[in-house]
C-alpha cells in the first residue's frame, strides 16, 4: 500500500481501466479510484444498474464497465471525491468530476488542470456544469481535455 505513503496512486496502482471501446462508445463510463478497504458504500447503494460490486461495506467498489450507463448517480454522493466519468468523443477527451470551490464553474469557463499529485498539467474548458444547488453544493463538471489526459486530470481550478 505504497499509495498511503504519498497520498496519490501511481500508474501501476490504478484499478483496471475500462476497455477502449467502452470509453469511446456513446456514453461516458465511470472510473473509481478508491482502492483501500474503508467502511463506505454510498456509491454502491446509489447505483440502480447494479454496476458496482461490493459484497461488504468494507470492500472497495468494483465496477462492471459493461453495466455502467454513466448516469452519474454515484458521482453525486461519493464523499471521497474518488469517482470520475471518462469519455472520448470525436477525438477529444472528457472528464467529469466533483467540484466544491468558489467561484462556481459554468459552461465555457477556462480552467487549470491538475493531476493526482497536484502538478499543473494544462488548461481545459468546461463543457457542462451541474448547478451546485442541484446537488447540495457539490457541482459536477465536465472538462474537455486532450484525450490522452483522461486518466491524468483529477482536479480543476479556475484562474
Amino acid at each position, binding site marked *: 500500500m505504497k499509495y498511503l505513503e504519498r497520498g*496519490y496512486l501511481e500508474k501501476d496502482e490504478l484499478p483496471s481501466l475500462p476497455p477502449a471501446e467502452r470509453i469511446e462508445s456513446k456514453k461516458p463510463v465511470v472510473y473509481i479510484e478508491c482502492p483501500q478497504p474503508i467502511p463506505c458504500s454510498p456509491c454502491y447503494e*446509489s447505483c440502480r444498474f447494479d454496476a458496482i460490486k461490493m459484497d461488504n461495506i468494507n470492500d472497495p467498489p468494483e465496477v462492471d464497465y459493461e453495466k455502467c450507463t454513466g448516469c452519474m448517480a454515484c458521482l453525486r454522493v461519493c464523499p471521497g471525491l474518488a469517482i470520475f466519468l471518462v469519455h472520448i468523443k470525436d477525438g477529444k477527451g472528457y472528464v467529469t468530476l466533483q467540484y466544491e470551490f468558489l467561484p462556481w464553474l459554468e459552461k465555457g469557463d477556462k480552467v487549470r488542470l491538475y493531476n493526482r499529485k497536484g502538478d499543473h498539467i494544462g488548461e481545459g474548458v468546461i463543457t457542462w456544469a451541474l448547478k451546485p444547488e442541484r446537488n447540495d453544493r457539490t457541482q459536477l463538471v465536465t472538462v474537455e481535455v486532450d484525450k490522452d489526459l483522461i486518466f491524468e486530470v483529477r482536479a480543476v481550478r479556475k484562474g
Partner: protein
Amino acid sequence: MRLESHPIVDFKRGKEVTIYFNGQPVKAYEGETIAAALYAAGVRVFSRSFRFHRPRGFFCAIGKCSQCMMEVDGVPNIRTCKVYVRDGMQIRTQNAKPDAENDYFAIIDKLIDRFFPHGSHYKKFNSPRLLREFMTKQMRKMAGFGNVPRNVPDVNTEYEVMEADVAVIGGGPGGLSAAIHAAKYGAKVVLLDENNYLGGQLIKQTHRFFGSGRHKAGTRGIRIAEILEEELMQYDNVDIRKETKVFGIYGMDVAGVQNNSKLLRVKARKIVIATGAYERTLIFENNDLPGVYGAGGVQTLMNVFGIKPGNKGLIVGSGNVGLILTYQLLQAGVDVAAIVEAMPRIGGYFVHAAKVRRLGVPIYTRHTIVKAFGEKKVEGAVIAQLDERWNVVEGSEREIECDFICVAVGLSPAHELLYHVGAEMKFVPELGGMVPLRTRFNETSVKGVYVAGDVAGIEEATAAIMEGRIAGIHSAITLGYGGDEAKKELDEAVKDLEEFRAGPFGERIVCGLEKCVLESEVML
C-alpha cells in the same frame, strides 16, 4: 477575516453590535461567541500563562481548554469561546499589566527560573508576616485567576426538578440517536446539552460523510445534524434543554445548570452519557504560542462562524480529521503549507488524502513538527524527518512558512461524568484513552448508566449514531417499553454495528472493545 461567501455554508450573521475589549470598541455580530468576534478583530493573545506569563491564544473553541478565559462584565474566568456577544459587553484580559497583549510581566518568562525555581515561592518571603502578606497579594495579582467580583452578580436564580425515564447528556450524534430511539418506543426523555444548538461536532462538518447510505453517508455532517434534530422533534415525549451544562450525577439524579441561572435536577431512571471528546495536543517547542490550535477549534471558527483562522496553515496529523480539515481550509480560501505525519503512512482514508494532494498540498509522512516560532503569535514552524526509531534525522530540519498550526493528533473521551458515577474505567489506547467497561448494549458497570459515541471510545459519527440507537432502545426495553418490536430492532442494531466495524479500520476498535467488555446478565 470574516468570510463573505463559502461554497458550502451560508453564514447567517445576526445584528451588528459593539463589545468593548480592554476598553476599546470591537465590532461583532449577534450569534458570535466573544472569542470568535475578538479573533475576527485580529486579537490573538487571549490570556497569559499562570506562572511564566507566556502569551496564550484560544485552542479548542469548545470550552475545554480554558486558554480563552477573560473577565466579562466584571465576572472573572469566563470561557469566552462559550459565551455569546451582547451589545455593550465589557471584556477584559486577566492578570496582565496593562493587558494580555502588552503584558509587562512577560519578562518573567525569561527570568523566573533563574531566581525562583519551581516551588520556591513557598519558601521565599515567609517572614516577617508583613512581607509575606504583601508578597502573597502581589503574587496573586500576577498569577491568580482574575479578580473576585465586587458585587453579587445581579441574576435571578431558579430551581427545577423534573423526572425522566431516560436522561441523555450530550446532544451530538450519539446523544441525539439515543434520545430518538428511547422516545420512539415511548420513554419520557430529557436531552441536555451545553450548547445553544444540537448536533455536537457535526455542526462544523461541511463534508459528506462516509459510511453506509442507510446511515446517512454521502450526506454532509451539518445536514445530518438537522435530520437528527428534526427526527427528534417529532416526539412530544422529549424535553430538550439547550445551554444546559451537566456538572454532576448523584445516584440517578442528573444535576445541571440551564442558561447560567437555573439549577436543574433530573430524576432519571436511566442515563445515557454522550459527552463526546477533547482534542489532544502534542509536545513541541512553543506549542502554547497563539496560532497553535486544535483542529476542531479551527473548524468551529471557520465553518460555524465563518472566520478565517489565518492565511496559511500547517497541519500536524494525517488522520481523517487532519485531512478533512485541510480540504475545508482550501474551500474557505486558506492555503495549507503541508501536512506532516509521524507514522510512515497516512493515517486517514486514502481518498481524503488524494483529495488534498491533487490540489497541491504536500503530505510528509515520517515527519514531525519540531517547533513553532514567533513573538506573540505563530510566524512559522520547523519540521523534520524521523528515522525508524522516531528520532529527528539530523540536518533534515526545514522551515515552513505559516501563520497558524493545527494539531490534529486525535481525541480523548470526555469522561468526567463517568468517574462521577463510579463506572469502572480502563485505559484502552485503541479507543483513545480511559474508557468505561460496558456490555454489548453499551451499559456501564453502573446499572442503568449507558454510554454512546466518542465518550465510549473515539470512533466516528456513524458509529456514535449506531451506539446511541443501541443504548436508547436497550434503556427503553429494560423500562418495559417497546415489546417485541423493540427487541427485534435492538438485535438488528447490534448486528449493523458489528458489520460496520468488520473492516480493517474497524479492527482497531474491535480489538479495543474486546478489552473492555463487561460480561453480566445482559440477556433480556
